[in-house]
């Protein structure tokens, strides 16, 4: 060992005398780069569910605290076989679609008004800021009186819940439209409507679409709240019934349905973004 060291030192010295040492430059660019670890995602899910199932099977997780995933699966399959799944999903989707469509449509109109007209902005923006944080669940009793106990109040809950975030994302989208593009439009003598149609609205599109992501997740949360008001069918109603009967297997199954619904809708919005914003880098 000591001999080798000697020899190395000798060589180094020799080199130094002959020519200066040549060493590769040190590498220091590591980290802070995302290298996908493909298996990690599925693995985490599989491991978590396996532990959970195992814990439930051995009684280490009491069925009261959490049902086994297999039980939740059974509850889900019951739902499928009894045909109730489609009834629940159908009812919920109908409420979601109507409430969300109306809420976002109105929200976009109001947001464009606020974004385009000084008077609308000065007048409505404070109102929107004041009403946005109001929890819609708190207003359920009023909604029942205003819109009746049937679909009206449920749709209204979702509508109100999606309206405000859409207003806000729309007018911030309009605010963030590149001012030089608008100036360009004016410099070519485009009419006001042309500028709005061809520059402002497409320019606000990315913000509006990303607002959709928020409003849809709010809509799903409010779906559960809305179906607290005497709904016979609906995923929310199913979850609430399961919750009040402490049928945790059904509860988990219902929650999983909503989660998957949320993921599917987010994916659809992703597709819409890819299509409508394909001009983006």
């Amino acid at each position, binding site marked *: 060992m000591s001999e080798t060291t000697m020899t190395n030192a000798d060589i180094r010295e020799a080199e130094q005398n002959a020519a200066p040492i040549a060493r590769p430059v040190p590498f220091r660019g590591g980290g802070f780069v995302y290298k996908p670890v493909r298996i990690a995602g599925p693995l985490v899910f599989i491991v978590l569910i396996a532990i959970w199932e195992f814990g439930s099977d051995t009684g280490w997780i009491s069925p009261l605290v959490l049902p086994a995933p297999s039980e939740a699966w059974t509850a889900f399959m019951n739902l499928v076989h009894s045909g109730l799944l489609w009834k629940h999903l159908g009812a919920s989707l109908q409420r979601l679609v109507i409430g969300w469509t109306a809420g976002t449509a109105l929200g976009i109109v109001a947001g464009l008004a606020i974004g385009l007209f000084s008077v609308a902005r000065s007048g409505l923006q404070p109102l929107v800021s004041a009403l946005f944080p109001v929890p819609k669940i708190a207003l359920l009793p009023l909604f029942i009186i205003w819109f009746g106990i049937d679909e009206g109040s449920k749709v209204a809950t979702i509508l109100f819940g999606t309206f405000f975030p859409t207003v806000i994302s729309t007018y911030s989208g309009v605010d963030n439209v*590149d001012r*030089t*593009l608008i*100036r*360009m*439009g*004016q*410099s*070519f*003598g*485009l*009419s006001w409507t*042309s500028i709005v149609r*061809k*520059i402002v609205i*497409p320019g606000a*599109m990315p913000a509006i679409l990303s607002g959709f992501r928020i409003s849809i997740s709010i809509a799903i949360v409010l779906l559960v709240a809305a179906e607290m008001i005497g709904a016979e069918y609906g995923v929310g109603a199913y979850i609430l019934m399961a919750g009040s009967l402490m049928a945790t297997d059904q509860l988990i199954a219902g929650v999983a349905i909503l989660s998957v619904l949320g993921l599917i809708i987010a994916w659809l919005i992703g597709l819409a973004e890819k299509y409508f*914003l394909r*001009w*983006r*880098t």
Partner: protein
Amino acid sequence: MDLKLDQVSHHYGATNVLDDISLTVKKDEIVCLIGPSGCGKSTLLRFIGGLERPSSGQILQIGEPPAASLNPLTYIFQDFALLPWRTVEGNVSLALEDHKLPKAEQRAIVEDVLRRTNLSDFAKALPRQLSGGMKQRVAIARALSVRPAVMLMDEPLSALDSQTRELLMDDLVDLWTRESFTAVYVTHNLAEAVRLGHRIVVLSRRPGRIREIVEIDMPLAERKDRVHELEVKQHHLWDLMREEARAADRELADV
């Protein structure tokens, strides 16, 4: 059509930006505006194009613009101002859509300007696919499509790298040589100014005043090969501006 700036002054709130600018821009002449950062060049150009109004003084059009001109005062912007969601073609036709032209004529104009700017192959491309130089060519094509009486250019080349800048300068000289146009050309770049300007207006620091107007009577097309002779003018301009540029550089934004 000539343009006449008549004692234009302007202030934004308490800051005086421009002070008593009087100037005439003659037909077929390229007037370069140079001056240190923040002296109000862009503001002045916005007044000329009618996008903003000065606090006092006025900008006059003298004579009628040519009848064929769809948009007499037409801008070319530093950052191109292309709609990213429209193709090259679509960006050019944007300028035409509000004029009631027959569809066929519109198409013909677009084809013509794309050909003149060597963009015919790129008609269907989206802005994100283009290099900076190509984007600015699209903006030039769009400007040409409305047959402007005066082109208002705000540092049109300063977002480009210097090689592309060189290429585009040649293109602009070619365009002017083939069919002369009137232009007000704002720039920081003295080399650009002496290559493109018939007259070079030197502004002082903010509030911008006219310090000197330098005339260059060498034909544009010859300048490229007679850079040596222009060197003197450029040196003179730089001597006029160096101190002010330095002072502008060392200014602290008190935001």
